[in-house]
């Protein structure tokens, strides 16, 4: 996929279609997140958009404590994708306290706060 002048919209449209796509700089070859008009690594402005593999690792994690009547505790993590970018996410399918740094996960498009968002689940196998 080629560069567009609307990187934020490009990413969100990807999520709406159930895909995680990220910009890769045509100059330095690195991915970045969040998507922007200028590469944060080398300041070039030409990108190709690629779907990510979804393979990632928990870089850091926390449990936000919340009373059960307000929905209970929940996880917030930073996931590092194998493409070399980190993003905030949440691990599903696991108690929030069970999420550990270094855990191998699969990133996927799920729903958070009423919209499509990148979530993670423990990698299978």
């Amino acid at each position, binding site marked *: 996929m080629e560069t567009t002048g609307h990187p934020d919209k490009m990413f969100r449209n990807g999520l709406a279609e159930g895909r995680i796509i990220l910009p890769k700089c045509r100059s330095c070859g690195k991915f970045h997140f969040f998507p922007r008009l200028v590469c944060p690594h080398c300041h070039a402005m030409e990108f190709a958009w690629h779907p990510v593999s979804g393979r990632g690792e928990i870089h850091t994690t*926390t449990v936000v*404590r919340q009373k059960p009547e307000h929905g209970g505790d929940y996880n*917030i993590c930073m996931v590092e994708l194998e493409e070399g970018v980190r*993003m905030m996410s949440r691990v599903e399918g696991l108690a929030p306290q069970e999420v550990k740094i270094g855990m191998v996960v699969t990133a996927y498009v799920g729903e*958070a706060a009423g919209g499509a968002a990148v979530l993670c689940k423990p990698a299978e196998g």
Partner: protein
Amino acid sequence: MTNQLRGKAAIVGTGHAGFGEAHGLTAYEIMAQAALAALGDAGLKLNAVDGLFCTMMEDSMPALMAAEYLGIRPRFVEGTMTGGSSFVNYLTSATMALEAGLCDVALIVYGSNQRTASGKLVTVSRPPPYEAPYNPRYPISAYALAAARHMHEFGTTREQLADVAVAARGWAQQNPEAFERGPLTQEQVLSARMVCDPLSVRDCCLVTDGGGAVVLVRAERAKDFPKPPVYVLGSAAESAHRQISQMPDFTVTAARESGQRAFAAAGVKPADIDVVELYDAFTINTILFLEDLGFCKKGEGGTFVEGGRIAPGGVLPVNTNGGGLSCVHPGMYGIFTIIEAARQIRGDAPGLQIKDVNLALAHGNGGVLTSQVTAILGSAATL
């Protein structure tokens, strides 16, 4: 490295107001009380102020609101908002403006009534768009993510984090101006209500009311004021990110760069510093900044703070007023690192006065480990 600004400006007055709970007062009233206290300390009147350096958490143009409230028409106004580090950052711009003759009396001031007005941290920030869906609790979730990574990489423990809180309380217990002066043990910190793992409520700064102010003039006239002048020997800033998810390395802050440049500008090194005033919004901050500013190696901050080593009677006096953890934290704490550093140098600290303080470090943190600003202050003997 040459520094044309070394020692060119001096703090000649400090003031504070509304510590703890200032019932019935507005943020601007607390701001004005702090300003008047600092000017009184310097033997100056409001009409002498022609440079105003201010931001608050109230309005989009707080510096202008403050000028209006104080009834002054400053010819130099600085309101750059880098969060709680803003006020340490203003030491640089105030020194520049004074040295360039753009103003003659610089007032740095802040005030907030957030404890009695709302009881929680007030912010005008919008949730970051790529973080908001996960509902992080700001700012604590950000600091928790950094703390968790530090523990993972370096084996830092919750007990070591707790020791930071216990040390801060130890200083606060000796400071009649501090808000929280009751006993606090490591066990109490560990068993306190968890807010955002690994940080319990006792790993978090206070939410208080309060205001602070300092007055600066050019060094050449600094000895004409009632109190001993405190010179700005070096100050430097670095900003690494805004949103926590963009922090390049969760265990290293931009204090590494701001510190190196501030020390170089002042011509001193960490071992020369007599007292250290760090922005301790959370216990992990103190550990990160001690490492990044060069008081210990990266990863050794946990060991450095163990067993009272930064408490009264320890090896390094850190946050001698009790810090944001136990003295005062009205939304933004940066101004109080300057005030306590200056008072330690002057010899009129409100709590435990360290003997023969000539060099003090004030470090401001803004956002979520975002903006780091370091200042080295010195007595006349250090010029």
